[in-house]
């Protein structure tokens, strides 16, 4: 099971069932995961599809779409940040 975390406005769009999800065998990279999400949840896929969306794997920001995803990873999708 992978853990998917959706922050901010992504959380309001994402299906809560995605919090704990068994990924299909073919999903092995971040790019693969985004493609799979876009197919399963088009509205979410569209929201995530922006150069300003950041992704953290196990709480570390990752910019490489070919980054591998393994069982038990925590993958977080972050909309543009706004502190202060």
């Amino acid at each position, binding site marked *: 099971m992978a853990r998917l975390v959706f922050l901010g406005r992504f959380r309001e769009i994402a299906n809560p069932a995605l919090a704990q999800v068994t990924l299909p065998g073919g999903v092995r990279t971040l790019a693969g995961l985004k493609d799979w999400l876009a197919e399963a949840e088009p509205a979410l896929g569209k929201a995530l599809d922006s150069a300003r969306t950041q992704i953290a794997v196990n709480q570390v920001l990752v910019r490489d779409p070919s980054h591998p995803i393994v069982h038990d990873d925590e993958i977080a999708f972050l909309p*543009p940040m706004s502190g202060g």
Partner: protein
Amino acid sequence: MTVRVTEEPFDPGAEIAAFNTAHGHAGALATFTGYCRAATAGRPVGTLYIEQYPGFTQREIQRLADDVSRQLGTLDLLVVHRVGAIRPGEAIVLVAAMAAHRAEAFDAVRLLMDYLKTDAPLWKKESGPDGDRWIEPTAHDHARRAKAGEKV
């Protein structure tokens, strides 16, 4: 250096006094406090919600503060940031910088605030009588951040 992300309201005056007590002989203390507005661009704000990514948010703010400290040679920094439901008039963020001289203290507060605006993993939603609205950094925030320095 202290970075605190809290759901509880805090008293900026008490935080600054405690921080000052710990470094009373440093020379210069500069502070900034950001408060929840009662209205944004004419729209009344009932509640501001700030969401964090627990663990990650605290560590990233710490990393930004470390970077400011390295760049400006401050003696100590304090960041307190509210998350959760915030009412107009309540403090959202406090940044305090202790340094030997005023220039470093002022610069550290300004730079860290510029970093927080665009790089702190926090997400804001304003809720008012005419609905909810997610807030993202403005072009002005990004311009200030670009001027402040390269991505840390």
